[in-house]
C-alpha cells in the first residue's frame, strides 16, 4: 500500500513508531497532488513548502522524544471556507481571492495542537453555496470515480482529495448537507456534528444558525479521531456547547446489538433513484444481520425542509455577506465614482451568480412586508421539523436515510437549473434545521460504478451511536476504491 493510501490513524501510528516520517508521508501526498490536480482540481491553494516545513519540525520534535499528538505528522486538507492564518483563504470566491487572514479558526488551532500537517485549502462552492462544487470561482472539482461527474458540494474539494488520496484526512463544513452529500458522491466518510459541538470561530459564515464544521475521512475510525480533536467548547463562539467530549474512538467499537434504527418513509418515496434505493436497502439488511432492529418511522414535515432551508439560509447569508463591501479587504472595483458605486461594483464583480441569487432571495424574504410571510413562517416550520425528530427519537436510537436521490450527476447538468440543484439536498437539509448530528458512510456502488453512501442521523450530541452503526456498515462494505483508469 502506498503511503498516501493510508488512513489517518494508521499513518499517525507509523509516524509515532518511527516506521515512516511525516516528511515522507507529506511528500507522497504532495507528489500525488502534483500528479492529479490538473484533472481533479480538489484544491484552491496548495501549500507545499509550509507543509514540508511543518512535517520536518514535527519529525524533529518526535526525534527529541516529544509527543506530537494524535494526528502527529498526518497531511490534511482544509476546506477553503475555514480560516488558516497566513494562508490565502478564499471561500471559493473572487471577492476573497487575495485574502490572507491574520488569525486561525478554532478548529485549526486544535488540529495544530494535535500535530496535523496542512497541505492545502480544498475547493468549495463559492461561500459554500452549491451542491456540486461548480460555483467555485476557482473552477469545478472533479469526481475521482468519474471525472465527468461532480464531486457534490460544497465540500467537494475535500471529498475529492480524499477519494483521490490527495490527503489523508480533511475538514469540511455542512450547512444543508455540504459534508454528507459530497462524501456520499465520492465514497468517503463525512460527519456533520451536532450544532455547537464544534466551534464555528473562523468558519467563513454562510448561514450561521445552520453551519457546522466536521471531519471528512477515509474511515469511520478516522472520523471519530478527528472529531475528538476538534470538538469541545470555545469561548469565542457563543453557540458552542459546553459539554464534555466523549472518547469517540473507544465508543466506535462498542457494537450495535439491540439498537433501534428508524427508516423515515418520507425519505423513500418518489424521486429516489432505484440504484440508490437498492444500495440503501442492502445497507439495511447488513444492519439487521448485525442485530439492529429496523423500525418504520415518519418525519411528516420533511416536504417543507427545502423551502424552509432556502428562506432561512439565504436570509442569514444576505447579512453574513454584507461585510464584503470592498472597504477593508477583498476585491474593490477600480472604476467607481462614488461610495455606493464602489459597493455595488465591488460586489457585482466579486460575487458569482449563485451567491448573488441567494443574497437577493434572502434580502427579499427579510424585507419589510415579507418578513412575516417568509422568514417568521420559516422559523415556525423549522420548529415543527425539529419536533418531528424529537418525536422519532422517542422510539429509535438513530435514523437511516439515503443521502441524495441520485449518484453524482454529470458536470454541468444542474448548474443552470438551481431548483433542481436545491432538490439534491432534500435528504440532508432537515438535519441542519434541527441542529442534529449525521454521518455519511459508503454503502456500495451503483451500476454506473459511482459510490452510494447512506446517512445515519442521531440525537443531539449522540455522535457516538452514529460512529458505532457506521463502523459496522463500514466493516461489511469496505473502502470504495477508485477504479483503475478512472482518473
Amino acid at each position, binding site marked *: 500500500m502506498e503511503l498516501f493510501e493510508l488512513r489517518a490513524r494508521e499513518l499517525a501510528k507509523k509516524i509515532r513508531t518511527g516506521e515512516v516520517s511525516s516528511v515522507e508521508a507529506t511528500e507522497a501526498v504532495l507528489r500525488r497532488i502534483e500528479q492529479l490536480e490538473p484533472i481533479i482540481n480538489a484544491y484552491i491553494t496548495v501549500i507545499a513548502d509550509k507543509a514540508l516545513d511543518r512535517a520536518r519540525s514535527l519529525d524533529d520534535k518526535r526525534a527529541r522524544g516529544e509527543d506530537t499528538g494524535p494526528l502527529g505528522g498526518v497531511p490534511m486538507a482544509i476546506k477553503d471556507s*475555514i*480560516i488558516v492564518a497566513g494562508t490565502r*483563504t478564499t*471561500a471559493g470566491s473572487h471577492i*476573497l481571492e487575495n*485574502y490572507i*487572514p*491574520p*488569525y486561525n*479558526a478554532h478548529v485549526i488551532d486544535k488540529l495544530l495542537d494535535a500535530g496535523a500537517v496542512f497541505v492545502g485549502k480544498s475547493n468549495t462552492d463559492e461561500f459554500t453555496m452549491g451542491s456540486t462544487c461548480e460555483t467555485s470561482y476557482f473552477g469545478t472539482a472533479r469526481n475521482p470515480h468519474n471525472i465527468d461527474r461532480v464531486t457534490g458540494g460544497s465540500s467537494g474539494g475535500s471529498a475529492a482529495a480524499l477519494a483521490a488520496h490527495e490527503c489523508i484526512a480533511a475538514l469540511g463544513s455542512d450547512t444543508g448537507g455540504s459534508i454528507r452529500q459530497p462524501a456520499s458522491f465520492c465514497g468517503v466518510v463525512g460527519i456533520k456534528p451536532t450544532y455547537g459541538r464544534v466551534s*464555528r*470561530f*473562523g*468558519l*467563513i*459564515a454562510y*448561514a*450561521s*444558525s445552520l453551519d457546522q464544521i466536521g471531519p471528512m475521512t477515509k474511515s469511520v475510525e478516522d472520523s471519530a479521531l478527528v472529531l475528538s480533536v476538534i470538538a469541545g467548547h470555545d*469561548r*469565542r*463562539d*457563543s*453557540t458552542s456547547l459546553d459539554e464534555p467530549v466523549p472518547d469517540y474512538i473507544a465508543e466506535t467499537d462498542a457494537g450495535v446489538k439491540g439498537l433501534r434504527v428508524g427508516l423515515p418513509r418520507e425519505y423513500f418515496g418518489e424521486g429516489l433513484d432505484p440504484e440508490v434505493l437498492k444500495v440503501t436497502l442492502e445497507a439495511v439488511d447488513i444492519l439487521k444481520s448485525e442485530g439492529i432492529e429496523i423500525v418504520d418511522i415518519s418525519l411528516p414535515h420533511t416536504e417543507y425542509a427545502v423551502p424552509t432551508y432556502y428562506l432561512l439560509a439565504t*436570509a*442569514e447569508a*444576505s*447579512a453574513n*455577506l*454584507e*461585510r*464584503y*463591501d470592498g*472597504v*477593508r*479587504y477583498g476585491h474593490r472595483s477600480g472604476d467607481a465614482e462614488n*461610495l*455606493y458605486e464602489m*459597493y455595488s461594483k465591488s460586489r457585482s464583480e466579486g460575487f458569482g451568480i449563485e451567491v448573488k441569487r441567494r443574497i437577493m432571495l434572502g*434580502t427579499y424574504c*427579510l*424585507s*419589510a412586508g415579507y*418578513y412575516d410571510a417568509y*422568514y417568521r413562517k420559516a422559523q415556525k416550520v423549522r420548529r415543527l421539523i425539529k419536533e418531528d425528530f424529537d418525536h422519532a427519537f422517542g422510539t429509535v436510537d438513530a435514523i437511516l436515510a439515503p443521502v441524495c436521490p441520485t449518484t453524482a450527476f454529470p458536470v454541468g447538468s444542474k448548474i443552470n437549473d438551481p431548483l433542481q440543484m436545491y432538490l439534491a439536498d432534500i435528504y440532508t437539509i432537515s438535519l441542519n434545521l434541527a441542529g442534529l448530528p449525521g454521518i455519511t458512510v459508503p454503502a456500495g456502488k451503483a451500476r454506473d460504478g459511482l459510490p452510494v453512501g447512506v446517512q445515519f442521523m442521531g440525537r443531539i450530541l449522540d455522535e457516538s451511536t452514529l460512529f458505532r452503526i457506521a463502523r459496522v456498515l463500514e466493516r461489511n462494505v469496505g473502502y470504495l476504491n477508485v477504479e483503475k483508469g478512472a482518473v
Partner: protein
Amino acid sequence: MRYVPTIGLEIHSQLATKTKIFCGCSTEFGSEPNTHSCPVCLGMPGVLPVLNRQAIELAMRMGLLTGGNIQRMSYFARKNYFYPDLPKGYQISMFELPLIRGGHLDLRTSTGEKTIRFNRIHLEEDAGKLIHIEGDTKSYFDVNRCGVPLIEIVTEPDFETTEEITLFLNTLKEMLIFSGVSLGNMEQGNIRVDANISIRPVGQKKLGTRTEIKNMNSFVNAAIAINAEIERQTDIVEQGGSIVQETLLFDAAHKTLAAMRSKEEAHDYRYFPEPDLVPVFVDDEWIGRVRSELPEMRDQMRRRFETVYQIPAYDAEILTTSPEIACYYEETIKAGADPKKASNWIMGEVLRVLNETQLPLGEFKIKPPMLAGLLSMVEKGTISGSMAKTVFDEMRATGKDPKAIVGEQGLTQISDKDALEKIAREVISSSPDEVAKYKAGKTQVLGFFVGQVMKATGGKANPGEVNAIIREILS
C-alpha cells in the same frame, strides 16, 4: 390657535465597560486611531461576537433605577445597512425583545411634578468613526469606536417643554454617572440625543406628523434645536401647510436644521435575530445581585453627607457634583481629616485647581491621605493656614508628601514663646513712633507689629502667639 408640542427622546449612552461589547478590545477614549481593533470588531470573515456580560449588568442597573421591567429573555438582532463605518454591514442591536421595558423618571419642574415614561432600554454596539479632512479627496476610518457598548433609552412622547427636556437630560446624566453605568462625558460622545417632535392644536388628541432630529451632542443644543423645530412646525401649520415626516440634522455651528432623509428614502433595516449570539437569559438571582451592588445615587449621598458629616447643605451639594469628588471627600475624612475643614479645602482649593487645569481627579497629584496630612498639620499648629496654601501648591506640582515639603523647606511654624518674645521686643524697640501711637489708643497699630514679626521670621511665626505676646509686652 395655540399648539402643544409632543416630544419623545432617544438617548444613546456609552456604557462604562473596560472592553467592547463583543470582543476584548479596549474602549478607552482618545487613543491613536485603529489601535483598539481585532478581527472581531473589524468584522473579518469567520469571526463571531461574544457578549460582554458587564454591559448587560450596567444596563440592568439603569433598568432597576428607573423602575423598568427587566426581561427574563431578550435577544440581539441584526440591523442591516451599508455604510463604511459599519464593518460587518450590520449593527448588532436589540430590537423585538429589549432587555428592559417600561420604567419612568419623575421631574420637579417649575410648574409641578412631571413623570416621563420609558418605552424601553436596550443594548447595541456603536459604529466606527469616519474622518473627512477638508481638501483631502480620501476619507479615513477609525475602528476604535466599533463595538463600543451603548444603551439606548427610548422615552414615551411625554415631553411638552424644553424645560422638561433639559431637566430630564440633566437628571438622567446624573443617574448614569452616579450609577457607574456611563462616564457621561458629552465631549467624548458618551451621551447622544435624538428627538421626535410633533405639534397639535390644544384640545386635539390625535398627534401630528413627527420629525426626528439627530446629532444633538449637548443638552444646550438639544433645547435650541427642539425649540427651532417647534417654531418651524408651528409656522408651517399656521400658514396652512403640512408637516413632512423626515429626519433632520442639527448643525451645532450654525444652529440650523437640515433635512437628512425623508420617509420615502427611509431604510429597510431587515432586522432578524442575530444567529451568532444566544438569547440573554436573566434570572432573579442575577437581578438580585445587580440590585445589591447598586451604587448610591446623588440625593441619598447628599443627605448622608449632611447627617453623617454634619456639613451644611451647600457643602453636600458641591461635594456630590460627581461620584469622584464625593469619593475624594470621603477618602480624605477616612484618612483622619475633620469633615468641615476637609470640605472647605476641597470646595476651595481642590475644585479651584481642577477647574483651572481641567485635570481629571484621577490625575490630580494630591491624594486624599496627603490632603488629610496637610490639614492635620494645620490643626496641630505645625504650619499656619497661609503656609498650608504654599505647601498645597507644592504638593500639587510635585506630588510630594506634605511632611516632606514642610521639612525640606523648613516651614515649621515657630510657636516657641521665648524666641518669639525676643523678636517681638526687637521689633517694638526699633519702632518708638508706632509704640507711642498704640499707647495713645490706636490699637490697629498692633497689626503693624505682628506683620514685622512675621516678616522677621519669614512667615513662620504662629500669628496667634505673636499677637498675644505683643499685647502682653505693650500692656
